């Protein structure tokens, strides 16, 4: 049986900050197993949308359905446990903890296991080391995360959210401020995890990266969905060009 239900479905999502409507009746859906891009000019509401999806921000109206389940209350911990994790636009790591601990903390261990005598069991540590290897951070496993270069911190943040083996990862500008070697590494990893069935929603301004990797693209403007389509269609769409270049 083929599952045709979208993994994420948002309808009429709205967020106001005082008089400013950051996200305005926004609706779109993300199919399971896709790498969907969320693009749009600065201030079009992309990050606000992501904050609502990942449970960091309450919404004023609209609904979010993740895996067919309505999300009622904003709660990042619950979202992570449901299988949706995110990275931040400016990389956020736990700076005074070492690189390995940055991963171990994200292992979805809970309940009574919290009170155990060790930080993680053997299998979790092995999985974390495997991820560090994939992201070429193994040599830095014992370094403080805060001592890593900015690009390495972005990779580390990405690796950490994979600890929970999420079904969907929201990446907020994964290539911003990262050199091209690391962008290639990041792209490779996204493709690799995508091949295992992981779904991605990527906010990105780097169009070369987006066009090469994502399908479909959701174009946001003034907090509303302007257009949804394949990369080629987006590139030739007059509305999108107007939004980006001004009409």
């Amino acid at each position, binding site marked *: 049986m083929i599952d045709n239900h979208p993994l994420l479905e948002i309808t009429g999502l709205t967020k106001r900050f005082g008089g400013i409507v950051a996200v305005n009746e926004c609706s779109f859906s993300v199919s399971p197993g896709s790498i969907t891009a969320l693009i749009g000019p600065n201030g079009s509401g992309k990050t606000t949308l992501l904050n609502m999806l*990942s*449970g*960091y921000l309450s919404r004023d109206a609209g609904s979010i359905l993740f895996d067919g389940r309505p999300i009622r209350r904003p*709660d*990042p*911990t619950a*979202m*992570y*446990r449901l299988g949706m*994790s*995110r990275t*931040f636009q400016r990389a*956020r*790591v*736990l*700076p*005074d*903890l*070492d690189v390995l*601990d940055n991963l*171990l*903390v*994200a292992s*979805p*261990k*809970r309940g009574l*296991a*919290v*009170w*155990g*005598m*060790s*930080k*993680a069991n053997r299998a979790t540590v092995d999985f974390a080391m495997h991820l560090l290897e994939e992201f070429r951070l193994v040599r830095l496993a*014992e370094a*403080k995360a805060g001592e890593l270069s900015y690009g390495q911190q972005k990779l580390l943040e990405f690796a*950490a*959210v994979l*600890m*929970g083996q999420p079904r969907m990862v929201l990446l907020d500008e994964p290539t911003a401020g990262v050199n091209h070697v690391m962008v290639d590494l990041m792209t490779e990893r996204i493709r690799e995890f995508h091949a295992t069935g992981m779904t991605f929603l990527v906010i990105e301004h780097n169009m070369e990266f987006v066009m090469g990797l994502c399908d479909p693209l959701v174009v946001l403007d003034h907090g509303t969905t302007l257009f949804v389509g394949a990369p080629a269609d987006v590139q030739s769409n007059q509305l999108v060009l107007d939004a980006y270049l001004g009409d």
Partner: protein
Amino acid sequence: MRRVLAPHQGLLAGVTVITVLALFPFTGAESWIVNIGIFTLMYAALGSAWNLIGGYTGYISLGSVAFFGLGAYALALTFQHIGVGNGLLPFLLVPVIGIVVGVISLPLGFIAFRTRGLPFIIVTISLVIILQYLALNLTAITGGAPGLQVPLAPFPPGTYEMYFYWAMLVVFALTLLACAYVRRSRLGLMMFAVREDEDKARGLGVATSVPKFAAFAGSAAFSAMAGAVWAYYLSTVYPQFAFDGEFLAMGIILVAYLGGIGTLWGPFVGALILTPAQQYFAYSLGANQFYLVAYAAVFVLVMLFLPRGVVTTIADKTLRRRRRRISAAEDSERQADAVGDVATVG
């Protein structure tokens, strides 16, 4: 957390230090020196307990004294109303008081954790002030300003201090053990994550209220145990001393900062420097207020030369030296490989 000592080395160091401390009264130290020892261990225990919430979880609490005072009053009240015998028997009450105050702290924590950062500091110091007023005014229970009397323990004068010294040592050792456990465990990792970036931690699936309340209640429990031993030792409890919002509240945080917050041994090292200095100055300059100036000077000097605390500075230096040695070894290995490659090609 990066550590200087491997776990078995840490255990050995801990057992050694506690053993040496336990044997200290047998050196024939005079009772006033053992008295300083009691206060040093009390600050070490209070500083380590504070470290759970302030150092590991990053919530700078000024409320430790509130729980210290509750522990002190709890002991005195038990004496008044229930009667727990005398001699060594009342010491058995100490862990019970710790648990009870730990539980009492949970609803208070619920209020305090509505805030973060600076407001949290203010909420926790208010707690101390409120309890001090309650202790002053609920005269039917607390005896008001004169406080409550605890019967003097029937220990022989020559060894009177020693029993309290050992009792305080046990409280300190238990606190240290709890800290050591926390630092190695998943719970501690969650506390550190809260300290580093609480919102990010939530996004990594960390149920942040678990480490926060565990740290708050644990900190309260150990502080209360220290307070209970202290009350029995002084055989009197009154509001200004039990809920001392200035001297004691600051002293606890000073020893932690001085030794290095967030480290295992920092509060102990801080207490070892600061408490004898404070007591010594109080004895020698006690008639005037100069002893407070001298006390402050010790703190200023350490902050000047070891601004991140004694243990933190030493640990960082050791780790850096070790890493430099490792990378030097790797470099020479790589050079050897390169030479080998050339030789093969040649």
